[in-house]
């Protein structure tokens, strides 16, 4: 299970700049589809990467699906050299993304996000409209069902 409160509280404790995207963002907007991880887009500044690394370190991040014993070190240098990381952590699966297809990085997305209070934490979440825009731009067949649901949510909201 994804422990959303633990993840968001860890990121908040270290003042990490991030935006919730993907399935969890869709859920926050009203989607009913099952998603098994938390996807975040983090700001790729040196300071923020240092905070991100420190925030997740207690939760033992490791590359998801990688064989045990792989020489993976969760540190600022690793994050700086990489971009997107699919992690298994003690509090659940977490995708730490420098960029997303169709949306770009944190700086491109932040003005298209909204602040939500979740589990006592103020966190930025990509807006419903922008989730749709990003998923459409990504153009992945696997997103079609999710896109249909997101657009249906937008229609239902307009009718409220």
């Amino acid at each position, binding site marked *: 299970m994804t422990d959303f409160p633990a993840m968001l509280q860890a990121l908040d404790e270290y003042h990490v700049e991030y935006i919730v995207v993907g399935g969890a963002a869709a859920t926050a907007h009203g989607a009913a589809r099952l*998603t*098994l991880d938390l996807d975040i887009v983090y700001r790729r500044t040196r300071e923020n990467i240092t905070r991100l690394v420190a925030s997740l370190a207690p939760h033992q991040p490791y590359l998801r699906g990688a064989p045990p014993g792989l020489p993976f070190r969760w540190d600022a240098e690793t994050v700086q050299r990489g971009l997107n990381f699919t992690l298994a952590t003690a509090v659940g699966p977490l995708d730490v993304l420098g960029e997303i297809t169709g949306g770009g990085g944190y700086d491109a997305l932040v003005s298209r996000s909204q602040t939500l209070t*979740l589990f006592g934490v103020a966190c930025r979440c990509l807006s419903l409209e922008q989730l749709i825009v990003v998923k*459409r731009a990504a153009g992945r067949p696997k997103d079609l069902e999710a896109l249909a649901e997101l657009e249906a949510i937008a229609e*239902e909201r307009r009718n409220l």
Partner: protein
Amino acid sequence: MARGDSRFDVDISLEPDPVIEAYKKDVDRTLIRENLKLTPEQRLRQLMKLQEFAEELQAGGRRTRRG
């Protein structure tokens, strides 16, 4: 509008995509309407319960395959 949702944008001005429109016919809007009565946090708590249930089902399946 559900509690805590007042800042959500719904100003979608994209052209309808015929493929997405076709998929939309199968969306269960009753689930969406129920979700829209909840706060974003309540929706995430509900998702965690669903994940827990999915894990139980997977574990049950594994036990059955092992005999």
